[in-house]
């Protein structure tokens, strides 16, 4: 009740406070100002993922609202074993993938295409992907399969470790490495096809 009468102002919370500490304080006080800070820190990033995966602004808005409600309602379940960012990104990816699965009526999306066999495709340099012109990057990300796009966003945009990606998909590290290798290869193939110059 005191929190409702005298809400903590967002500006009162130190900017250096870690996400994990903010979560603890939110759970302890239930003061929405703490949630506002997390929203400020992550809403843009989460929306960027939603729009990248779902493509339509309206759908991305609905998805983001659901995702933040899930985050709020499950905040107490955040154990702190992983980074807070990893936790909310995994909620985001899983939610968006579920929507795409339902739309495409393809339950196998992102589940069965983690091959563990070691194929002989050459490894694409990270710098090639990271330095692609932004306009082209956006176009290619829209062209490659959703499963490849998701794993590339996790690795290069969210800088998630192989272990963290494996935890999200419940896959071994070697399966994740192979999937990333293939996604990079696919990315380069499409790039070369589209921009032969």
């Amino acid at each position, binding site marked *: 009740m005191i929190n*409702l009468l005298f809400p903590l102002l967002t500006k009162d919370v130190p900017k250096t406070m870690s996400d994990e500490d903010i979560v603890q304080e939110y759970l302890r006080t239930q003061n*929405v100002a703490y*949630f506002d800070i997390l*929203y400020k820190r992550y*809403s*843009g*990033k989460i*929306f*960027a*993922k939603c*729009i*990248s995966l779902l493509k339509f*602004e309206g759908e*991305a*808005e609905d998805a*983001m*609202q659901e995702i*933040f*409600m899930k985050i*709020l309602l499950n905040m107490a379940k955040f154990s702190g074993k992983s980074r807070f960012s990893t936790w909310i990104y995994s909620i985001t990816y899983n939610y968006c993938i579920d929507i795409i699965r339902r739309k495409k009526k393809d339950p196998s999306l992102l589940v069965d295409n983690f091959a563990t066999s070691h194929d002989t495709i050459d490894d694409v340099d*990270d*710098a090639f*992907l*990271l*330095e*692609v*012109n*932004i306009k082209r*990057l*956006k176009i290619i*990300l829209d062209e490659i399969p959703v499963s490849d796009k998701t794993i*590339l*966003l996790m690795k*290069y*945009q969210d800088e998630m470790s192989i272990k963290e990606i494996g935890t999200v998909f419940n896959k071994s590290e070697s399966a994740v490495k192979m999937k990333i290798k293939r996604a990079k290869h696919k990315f380069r193939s499409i790039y070369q096809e589209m921009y032969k110059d």
Partner: protein
Amino acid sequence: MPEVNNFKELERLQSEEFKASTDKVKRNVNNSLASFGLMANVIELYFSRMFEVFVDLTNTSSSKSNTDIDKKDL
């Protein structure tokens, strides 16, 4: 990892481009939060009272039946 990361730059540009959308979603989340808060207050205020009323009612009816028994005995 190389210093240039256009994946991150793309994310930053999309965040700026869709600022209006994130603000709109924030308003909706705040409204949902307010509704939850209201519901929680209603439950906190009235459900505890309802329990007390229920206990009182059961006590009253049992004491009434006791009185009936007492009258019969007389």
